[in-house]
């Protein structure tokens, strides 16, 4: 007898669909979440809570990562790596350690992958220095689950046909788009005159109340903030709350799993965790599902050694932690000065609340003789208003163009101009971060967390190919801003990893020599272990990951259900 049928580690977008599906089916489920249980009653538009203090994430002095960043080349032309803990650098790699995980803080720009994303290796051939492989499943395997997420989590939008649109089994989204900002009118006009097709970005945001969740109230503060209405499709609001009401699911906050024990046959038998008071507990279950953030999932498996798993759980071919991917690309801005506009237009541009909801996928596959690769996987460009966080905006203004500190009246004038004379329009480029041997997770031999466990060390190398594609897309993105008569247009594409867009590390595949999981996201060498967060992805696609993580977790939940 085990304590539960299923034990899930992590309550975010990877764990919750499994909890929801199996609890609904009547199986007993326990979810171990290392963070607190914050609800709509705890989420306010408080910049200190969301973005300037460690409230939704651990204090770095207690729990940190060690980042190995590119540090030039040595005399033989080999890469050098400089390692620094995030406690020293302040470069925080945590995303959201609360019930519902980082899905609480996403903007919810929801894109499906496209059929091409499942077969990058066969579609575009090998790329030297990159470990690109085809997925073991196809788009058609995931399509029903993308559709499921649209109704269960709640995705609003309007489907239109375009050059690279993916097939859909339903005609349109179950919820109509959220209210749009007046700038979108100018944006669409500019795109049409350039021959681009502006797309309405689907959002995991409910436009009106559904069940216990209220509709969006358009406060103008969405990404990075927890939702106070329940409109945002966080794993907590959309799935955990419902799983609890089935009477078959228990969620334990502040349960920090530090080890998965395995038996002599290699099966996982117990999860060991610390509770709120740092007391140790052990839970047994028939099946274990790990979904606690790409980096932390690999870390937990590596730390979970056993008789049959001397190098860490599911790591008998030394693949755990390998082929970590982020989202490549970058961002850019253009400025619109109110003095150049009519009063009416200026009033439109100043509005804060409704969404931009616009993106371009005209170059999801690049086929352009002027591009030095000619045919390559491209990506997605999203447009948005600059983030409204005022303290962050102000703090950036204390440095002048020569990086010297500014104060007194000069500083105050800079603030006044920045805040009151213009609206900054922004874009973000998403393209594939190619998996390489220089981007992976291991256990740091020295640094420990507050419980004494080795922290994850992450090497964050990137492939030059990513920058070429990113720059190509950023230049295209700029043309729209130019057409809109924006001033001071600039963009930046770099190999710096965005810490909130991470996947891979336990990729799935048919060949155990180069993957950790099989096509069912079940460990090759531990038959009652599944991984359902973004870790499974061999390549990331050129969109934010959340919808795909949700969809795949629903798919794996059905597989586990059939097995139970």
């Amino acid at each position, binding site marked *: 007898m085990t304590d*539960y049928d299923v034990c899930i580690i992590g309550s975010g977008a990877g764990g919750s669909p499994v909890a929801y599906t199996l609890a609904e089916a009547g199986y007993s489920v326990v979810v171990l979440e290392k963070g*607190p249980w914050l609800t709509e009653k705890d989420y306010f*538009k408080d910049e200190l809570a969301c973005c300037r203090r460690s409230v939704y994430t651990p204090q770095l002095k207690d729990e940190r990562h060690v980042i190995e960043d590119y540090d030039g080349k040595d005399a033989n032309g080999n890469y050098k790596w400089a390692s620094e803990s995030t406690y020293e650098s302040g470069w925080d790699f945590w995303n959201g350690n609360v019930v519902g995980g980082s899905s609480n803080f996403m903007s919810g720009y929801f894109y499906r992958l496209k059929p091409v994303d499942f077969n990058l290796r066969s579609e575009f051939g090998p790329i030297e220095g990159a470990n690109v492989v085809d997925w073991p499943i196809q788009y058609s395997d995931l399509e029903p689950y993308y559709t499921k997420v649209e109704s269960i989590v709640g995705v609003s939008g309007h489907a239109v046909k375009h050059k690279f649109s993916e097939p859909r089994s339903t005609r349109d989204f179950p919820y109509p788009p959220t209210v749009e900002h007046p700038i979108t009118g100018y944006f669409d006009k500019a795109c049409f005159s350039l021959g681009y097709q502006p797309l309405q970005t689907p959002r995991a945001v409910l436009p009106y109340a559904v069940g216990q969740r209220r509709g969006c109230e358009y*406060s103008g503060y969405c990404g990075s903030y927890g939702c106070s209405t329940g409109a945002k499709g966080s794993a907590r609001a959309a799935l955990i709350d419902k799983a609890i009401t089935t009477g078959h699911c228990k969620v334990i906050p502040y349960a920090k799993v530090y080890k998965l024990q395995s038996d002599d046959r290699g099966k996982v038998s117990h999860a060991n965790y610390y509770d709120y008071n740092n007391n140790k507990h052990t839970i047994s279950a028939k099946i274990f599902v790990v979904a606690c953030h790409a980096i932390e999932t690999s870390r937990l498996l590596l730390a979970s050694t056993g008789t049959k798993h001397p190098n860490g759980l599911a790591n008998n071919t030394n693949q755990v932690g390998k082929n970590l991917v982020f989202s490549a690309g970058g961002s850019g801005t253009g400025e619109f000065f109110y003095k150049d506009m009519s009063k009416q237009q200026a009033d439109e541009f100043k509005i804060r609340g409704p969404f931009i909801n616009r993106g371009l996928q005209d170059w999801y596959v690049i086929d352009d003789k002027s591009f030095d690769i000619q045919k390559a996987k491209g990506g997605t460009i999203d447009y948005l208003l600059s983030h409204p966080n005022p303290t962050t905006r102000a703090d950036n203004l204390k440095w002048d163009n020569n990086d010297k500190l500014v*104060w007194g009246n000069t500083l105050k004038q800079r603030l006044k101009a920045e*805040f009151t004379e213009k609206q900054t329009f922004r874009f973000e480029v998403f393209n594939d971060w190619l998996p390489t041997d220089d981007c992976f997770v291991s256990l740091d031999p020295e640094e420990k967390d507050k419980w004494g466990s080795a922290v994850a060390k992450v090497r964050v190398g990137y492939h030059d190919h990513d920058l070429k594609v990113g720059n190509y897309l950023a230049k295209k993105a700029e043309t729209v801003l130019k057409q809109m008569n924006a001033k001071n247009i600039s963009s930046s594409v770099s190999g710096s990893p965005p810490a*909130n867009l991470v996947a891979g590390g336990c990729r799935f595949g048919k060949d155990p020599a180069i993957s950790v999981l099989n096509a069912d996201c079940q460990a090759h060498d531990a038959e009652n272990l599944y991984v359902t967060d973004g870790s499974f992805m061999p390549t990331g696609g050129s969109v934010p990951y959340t919808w795909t993580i949700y969809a795949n977790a629903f798919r794996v939940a059905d597989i586990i259900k059939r097995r139970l």
Partner: protein
Amino acid sequence: MTKQFRNKCNRQSKINLQDILSQWNCEVPEVVKQKNLKSRRLFLEQSIVAAGSVVISARAIAKTKTSSVDLKKLSQPWLTLSEVQEHLFPRSTDKDKQTARLSVSPGAKDIHAIEYLQTMLNTPDVDGDEKEFIIKGVEWLDGVANGIAGKPFIKLNKASREQVIKKISESSAGENWLSTLLRYIFEALLTDPVYGGNTNKSGWQWLEHQPGFPLPPENKKYWLLRNSKTAIQSRGKV
């Protein structure tokens, strides 16, 4: 998904106090250095006690139209810090570009920047080294002020204060110290009034900033969230 890139201004890296001490010590007169060594521990303890004992009447602030802070009630090092804040972020007059109308824009004292700083430095999530660094900086500042003008910072006129601030901004330690103070001034200017700054939303009004909603009530200040009864309790039955 808003991409979160590394931003040096967003969150300060951890300060290595020893590095800074050795850097800044090079610029501080020898006598001050000696004094620092002897009194450092005692000095820190006193300043922490002082932080707790400052009481400012809200009604008094509402009544006065000039300086909103009762400076007489501030003890060192807060008195000097308050003056440095006001120098970095003075009350000033804005001229509207279209109408040429003049309006007063808030300075550090108007937005209660010193009380805000005191509050924040007493929260557990502000790094102890940072707190020590901020407080320590006052002695270094006065060391430089004495070296340049023969008087502590608060006894100097505006022009001399500017000279001293400019001087310390030229070392990386000094620049770091001023930048840290500015970071807290911006927070006092633009975070929710529930935290003690942004008096009557004057920071938001000055910059025509539209805050979101709902805003945090008194019982949901960020340091109260993680350990509330509902945050730590398991839910659901099996």
